[in-house]
């Protein structure tokens, strides 16, 4: 145990990140199931309204800060050194510190449940609702302090990843040759570095208001409630891409290997990520379209928000073109990657609908948004993570995951997810606002909500099957060997699982697919370009 507690090896820290994220994922999922049960029929009274509000606050905060960010950081910390042919992260102690800050931030947040005062102002904690007069009790303080710790941890790991990519690459590996997952992790880390301080600043202002009687958000004293929204969303929208870009990176590794072709248009896939990163800092006010901010102001943000669809579309088409003319192997990892393409496209397109301001003026803060974010974050990020788990599990454990359990896992998740969330588009169109603990018995409301709840139940079974598959494969999986997928990037040149020292000899890299060059000396990549 003390081996793990004191671990500074990037592989151990990475696995700690992933395991803690998995535990919080199960907690956040349970919170969601209680909410879905409460919403399964109109006017139910299974839980009191205050508890419902605590649950959706904790669900959102957990899934974003304690699941999506850490699990992606975990994959980054685990894979980046292996992919760039390095034996360690550049700053291993900072890596461990970042993890423990992150973990204890999460623990602090959950301690609030034990005190009976979990935060209930939403994961976005809009002022003045989150201020003392309207949220008395320590709940919001727990929330803000926990997130400050998580923020510090995220910034630490981001710095670590940036320095690692900048200084630890194998000889010959220029930035034009690093794998796309590394590219996306780098872009994400830079985004974290510029977005998270805005969150930290707003949390400090909120804590000052609550604990030191400052007046940042009180209009009666010259403050402004909109100040919170501007700060929160200038962090909050880049945050969406922070939890999506590394997923794009995973897809960009998995689709080529199982299509047996190199990624289509590498420079475009890499550059479009940089474009997304830049644009993502100019779209925050699209979360505030319902505030009367002035038409010209809104139009600028509408334009930027629509533009961000273009580089995202480029990626989708590049992935399809990678499959085109390939020789596709339908492993569970590839099936999740293909499902990702479809589910994420739905989430992206409903996003464009929201950038259309008049549509937003009706649909914002309805269940249409709930559907949209879940198609992006679950259909996008989680599907990619499941693909990534099936793809890299053999490297991390030395054993294969069970494919037939994997297929069950896949179909339960796909069916459950779409049943749970597709109908929420219709609920939004019918006028059901989000964040309500119950609803009147209006036409269709009961039926659609029931379908959604049943879908969520199926989804839970799918996720539990995934956990079971991991647990069983750890002990009973067939041995994987170093390179079970016949892949091309450097992590597959290391042992499975890699030794403390990843590579006994650091390879010299001449192309984007060093292992292809090794396996096909008659037609190496570096001779092509």
């Amino acid at each position, binding site marked *: 145990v003390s081996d793990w507690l004191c671990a500074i090896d990037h592989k151990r820290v990475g696995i700690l990140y992933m395991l803690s994220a998995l535990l919080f994922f199960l907690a956040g999922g349970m919170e969601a199931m209680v909410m879905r049960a409460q919403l399964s029929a109109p006017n139910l009274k299974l839980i009191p*309204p205050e508890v419902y509000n605590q649950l959706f606050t904790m669900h959102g905060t957990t899934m974003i800060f304690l699941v999506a960010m850490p699990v992606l950081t975990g994959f980054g910390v685990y894979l980046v050194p292996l992919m760039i042919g390095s034996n360690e992260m550049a700053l291993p102690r900072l890596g461990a510190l970042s993890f423990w800050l992150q973990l204890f931030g999460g623990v602090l947040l959950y301690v609030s449940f034990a005190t009976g005062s979990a935060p*209930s102002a*939403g994961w976005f904690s809009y002022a*003045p*609702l989150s201020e003392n007069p*309207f949220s008395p009790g320590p709940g919001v303080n727990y929330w803000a302090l926990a997130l400050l710790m998580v923020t510090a941890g995220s910034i630490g790991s981001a710095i670590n990843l940036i320095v690692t990519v900048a200084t630890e690459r194998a000889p010959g590996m220029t930035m034009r040759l690093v794998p796309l997952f590394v590219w996306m992790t780098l872009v994400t880390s830079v985004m974290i570095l510029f977005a998270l301080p805005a969150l930290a600043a707003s949390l400090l202002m909120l804590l000052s208001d609550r604990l030191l009687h400052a007046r940042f958000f009180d*209009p009666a004293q010259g403050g402004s409630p*909109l100040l919170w929204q501007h700060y929160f969303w200038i962090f909050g929208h880049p945050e969406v891409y922070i939890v999506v870009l590394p997923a794009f990176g995973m897809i960009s590794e998995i689709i080529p290997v199982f299509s*047996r*072709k*190199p990624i*289509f*248009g*590498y*420079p*475009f896939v890499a550059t479009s990520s940089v474009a997304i990163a830049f644009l993502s800092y100019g779209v925050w006010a699209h979360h505030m379209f*319902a*505030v*009367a901010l002035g*038409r010209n102001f*809104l*139009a600028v943000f*509408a334009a930027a928000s*629509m533009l961000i*669809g*273009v580089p995202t579309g*480029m990626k989708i*088409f*590049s992935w*399809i*073109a990678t*499959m085109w*003319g*390939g*020789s*596709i192997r*339908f492993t569970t990892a590839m099936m999740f990657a*293909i499902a990702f393409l*479809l589910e994420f*496209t*739905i989430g992206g*397109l409903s996003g*464009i*609908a929201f*950038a*259309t*301001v*008049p*549509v937003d*003026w*009706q649909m*914002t*803060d*309805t269940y249409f948004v709930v559907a949209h974010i879940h198609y992006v974050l679950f259909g996008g990020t989680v599907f990619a993570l499941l693909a990534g788990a099936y793809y890299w599990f053999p490297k991390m454990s030395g054993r294969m995951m069970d494919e037939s359990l994997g297929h069950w896992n896949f179909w339960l998740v796909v069916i459950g997810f779409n049943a749970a969330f597709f109908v929420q588009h219709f609920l939004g169109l019918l*006028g059901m606002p989000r*964040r309500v603990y119950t609803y*009147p018995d209006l036409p269709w409301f009961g039926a659609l909500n029931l379908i959604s709840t049943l879908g969520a139940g199926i989804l839970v079974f799918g996720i539990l099957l995934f956990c079971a598959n991991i647990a069983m494969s750890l002990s009973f999986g067939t041995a994987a060997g170093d390179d079970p997928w016949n892949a091309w990037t450097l992590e597959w040149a290391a042992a499975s699982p890699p030794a403390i020292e990843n590579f006994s000899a650091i390879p010299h890299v001449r192309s984007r697919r060093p292992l292809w060059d090794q396996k096909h000396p008659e*037609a190496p*990549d570096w001779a*092509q370009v």
Partner: protein
Amino acid sequence: VAVFKLVLLIAAVVFLVVACGVAYCSLRYRGRGGAGEPRQLFGSIGLEILWTVVPLMIVIGLFVITVRAMVLIDVPQDPASTPVHDLVIIGHQWWWEAQYSPFLVATGDIHIPVGHRMLADIVSRDVIHDFWTPQLARKVDAVPGLNSYIWLEADAPGIYAGTCSEFCGVQHAWMRFRVIADTEPDFRAWLKRQAMPSPAPTGIAVEGERLFQSKKCADCHSVVATESQPGRGPNLAHIATREFLGGGIARNSQASLALWLTDPQSAKPGNRMPATPLSANERDALLAYLESLR
């Protein structure tokens, strides 16, 4: 609505292109094994440009439509002058109040004349709310310290459902309201009726009126529609004529009203009304008084 249909159409077409691409690749290029590696293709600049420019065109078109629709829907802004509004709509935790000028307030139900474009000033007394009547107007946030203007207009008489659409605390779910569109004469008649006092109470309702004062109900609740008390409990003028109570949480009936009097926290958990100990007789007297407010 037209804009939404167009966006939906574009989205459907794009999704179909992607889905067909994925399905075609999945079926056509299914690996048969043993055939060696397929041809290694690294990219095509022409194709990349094509799928950058085409979406860019779509997006530019969509932007033009967006701005046009915004101009059509939104109240024009003239920074030089404050708009002259027809009514002020106030969000409270967790009920809506409409203030007509000159002073006349209504709770829960907001009446407007058909075919007349009412300029509404949306404000909040506590936290951020959002005023949303899907069939009549865009939604707009009610932000403390800020005046936000929308046009409220109905083409046909009827009852239009509305709800708060920004999370505002414990009872956000029950911050519903109705906009009732009347013909012009009906609207005038309604205004007149609201302004008139209710008939004087009789029987035990007289005792109820006395209790209403002595039990301090009147500290927060007015019973005269022409008197507004910002930031306190809802105005109870003509409460007997209302169809719903507490932002839609219950129908207005003797039973639900009695629950509000005796145990407000179980009538609507979290609301701001303190519990007042009442004997059964006092409760009946207060009920009779409230029932007399027609």
